[in-house]
């Protein structure tokens, strides 16, 4: 049983962590938490199943088109739901605008794709039992994504520009960085990360429109645990959440695992509002 808990826990945790990274990627350049993060992961599964099972494309084409589609949705998020409300960030209108867009995405998926969970193709066909690919693929995808992101942020000029904007928007603009374009790019990147989460977790979560709302919550918990904008915190938080949830799932049953996760969320928020790895708040007066 321990093996099952570990396998399914790490797999689910990796998906949650990737959704958390999606939140963070959008947040870093715009200071906006977007409800579309979970929907992007949902679309990763739906697009993948659509391209490969419905349209019969090979894996590489399916993956490429899925990521492209998700990146496009990310860019649309920036244009429709984020850019118009950035001027009045303190009014938190982004909560509403991104929620509206997320609902539209979910509703279109429900009507055009169907409200029943649909199968996701086996990608490689490797492994069985606890070593089944549906368990290790998300973990592998998560590791690869993090390594690529680290490379991007540490070694490339574009990545450093992202960091500069995340650190201090005004100073970055004063330096002449194309803040608006970089923001659009970061939303495309967030789309790709979300797409990877959904695609790699497709065999585990299936292509199901309601995954969006679920992943919105379970993907946000690691962000809340780890602190806003902190990718390392999101990964640790995501994996811990996955293991905790699956352990509760196996030991005390399904309903109580969701109750346990919710309780954990509330307790952590009350005890450490800035997250376990987050920074202190800014001056108020």
């Amino acid at each position, binding site marked *: 049983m321990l093996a099952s808990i570990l396998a399914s826990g790490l797999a689910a945790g990796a998906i949650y962590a990737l959704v958390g990274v999606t939140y963070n990627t959008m947040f870093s350049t715009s200071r906006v938490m977007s409800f579309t993060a979970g929907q992007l992961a949902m679309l990763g599964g739906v697009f993948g199943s659509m391209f490969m099972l419905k349209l019969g494309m090979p894996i590489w084409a399916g993956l490429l088109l899925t990521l492209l589609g998700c990146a496009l949705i990310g860019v649309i998020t920036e244009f*429709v739901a984020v850019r118009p*409300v950035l001027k009045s960030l303190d009014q938190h209108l982004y909560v*509403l605008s991104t929620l*509206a867009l997320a609902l*539209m995405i979910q*509703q279109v998926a429900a009507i055009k794709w169907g409200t029943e969970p649909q199968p996701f193709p086996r990608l490689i066909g490797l492994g069985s039992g606890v070593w089944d690919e549906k368990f290790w693929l998300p973990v592998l995808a998560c590791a690869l994504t993090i390594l690529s992101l680290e490379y991007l942020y540490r070694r490339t000029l574009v990545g450093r520009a992202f960091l500069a904007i995340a650190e201090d928007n005004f100073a970055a603009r004063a330096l002449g960085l194309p803040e608006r374009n970089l923001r659009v790019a970061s939303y495309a990147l967030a789309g790709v990360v979300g797409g990877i989460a959904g695609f790699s977790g497709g065999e585990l979560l299936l292509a199901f429109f309601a995954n969006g709302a679920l992943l919105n919550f379970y993907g946000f918990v690691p962000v809340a645990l780890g602190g806003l904008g902190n990718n390392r915190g999101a990964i640790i938080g995501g994996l811990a959440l996955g293991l905790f949830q699956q352990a509760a799932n196996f030991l005390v049953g399904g309903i109580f695992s969701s*109750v346990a996760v919710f309780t954990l*969320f509330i307790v952590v928020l009350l005890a450490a509002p800035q997250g376990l790895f987050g920074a202190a708040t800014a001056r108020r*007066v």
Partner: protein
Amino acid sequence: MTAISATPPRSETGALRAALPHIAPFLGILALAMILPFVSNDYWALIGTRAAIYWVLVSGLNLIVGFAGHLAIGYVALLTLGAYTTSVLVAGNVLPPVPVFAALPIAGCVGAVFGVIVGLPALRLRTFYFAMSTLGFATIVTQIALAWQSVTGGGIGIVGPEFPAPFNTAWGYYYLCIGFAAFTTWMSANVAHSRFGRALIAVRDAEVAAEATGISKPRMLIAIFLFAGALAAIAGGLFASLQTYITPDAFTFDLSILFFIAILIGGRGSILGPMLGTIILTILPEIAAPLAAWSTFLYAVLLLVIVLAMPGGIAALLDFRNRRPLAANRAIVPRPAALGDVLRKSAGGRTLKLRGVSLSFGNVRAIDGLDLDVAPGQIHGLIGPNGSGKTTTLNVISGYYAAKAGTMSLGDDELPPGMPALRAYKGIARTFQTPRVIGEASVLQNVMIGGTIEGQATFVEALLALPRNARDERMLAAKARALLGVVGLEMLADVRADRLQHSELRFIEIARALMLEPDFLLLDEPAAGLSSDEIERLAQLIKAISKRGAGVLLVEHHADLIFDICDQVTVLNLGRTLAAGTPEEIRVHKEVVSAYLGA
């Protein structure tokens, strides 16, 4: 004060006449609802009942979303909770069966408790976190309803409660729900128009100022979470009976979105707007049947349009009064002489003492061992170059920063470091460098905020509009009007504060601070942005305030004003006292002249 309290009978009919335009639309909607049975069929009874039940929930939720500004998007969870609690209690499959009119209040209590649990994150974190916690709660409640088969019947469901005659017919039940809706409208309007409703808006739009007036955010929020949770659960019980049979499928997230969007379409801080929003959103899918499947998409588009194009919602469209232009060349003419009618003479006699107070931000020592005495009845000026620690000193006194070292005392009382919400109770009021007023509230309401802690009535008394609450309201309104007269803004009392000029906002802040009848008034650059005439009038006003016995601590850059009205002046430089003494001594102090005043 005497002039105002002398004619209560006339002011009462006057109040009724003033309130009539506000009440008329509600009476109109109620009248329409009452005649609906005579002009339509049972199908519309169902729609009407549904709208009424939704409104029972929304009227409570509106206080959270529309007034307190917390984005609760998952309130269907509390509807579900109430529906199952009522059904299970009436069906008696766990405990002995309970009559439905007893089950409803029990469900209300359960809902109130869970309303607070879901709301807990809102006490410390705003917006997205709270939205997420309600969303998470909505997800798990449905899962529990599905999985806990022995109680909820799982996916098969459970029979909804049945109401006894005469409420067991379509129209009988309709009238019952309309009755509930009317009652909850009345209660939520009572809260909205009491000091609690104003305090909620203050916490939403000017949280820092709200703390300075002594408003306790947690207590305020918990009260409305209890109330909204109870209403949502009672709505759930009514909903279950309307459905006659409930399964987890009946409580889709779309419902949550309907509740939430109805409020936003209606407009923040309004009751009529969200009510119209609820009615429109309930009817919309019915009259456009082909769109029914797309209803959530439609709601989402509406939400996006509202957010991007008209953030004020229906309420802003209906707000004709605030479209009338204001006089362009109006002047603020304070009447300091009237101050004596409003404020009792401060009996305080206590001195505000700071001893060795220090505070650093990182490596910067903002204040470095500061001693300061502000005597009652005196105007104490605090001047110094930018970054010398003037505003930081005010913030330490009013508790926004906790000093790392040193003590503060008020007479014999120690002032605890931090805890800004306790300062108002100690008789300390303040204004801010950038005025912090509530743009969406009227000038009068902004000033009334200042007296929030003077109210005697409890939340329940306000909810039921008991006499003590009415007395509070009359007292606060009369005092606020009188103070607006003192600062010279009584003509603008009913205007939305965001339509005013900067200088007028400064005087509103002073009036708001005076509502407390403070022993000490801390003014942070009150003359910034004022014309020379206005500064002259401000000087007279401040002098009059200190003559009433209050100690005034004045942070200012206008040296003329300081030397004109202050009894004592302290000059700060790099967080330390550079000089202290009477204006005459400071004016000729060598170091001060070279460091700050210039030759």
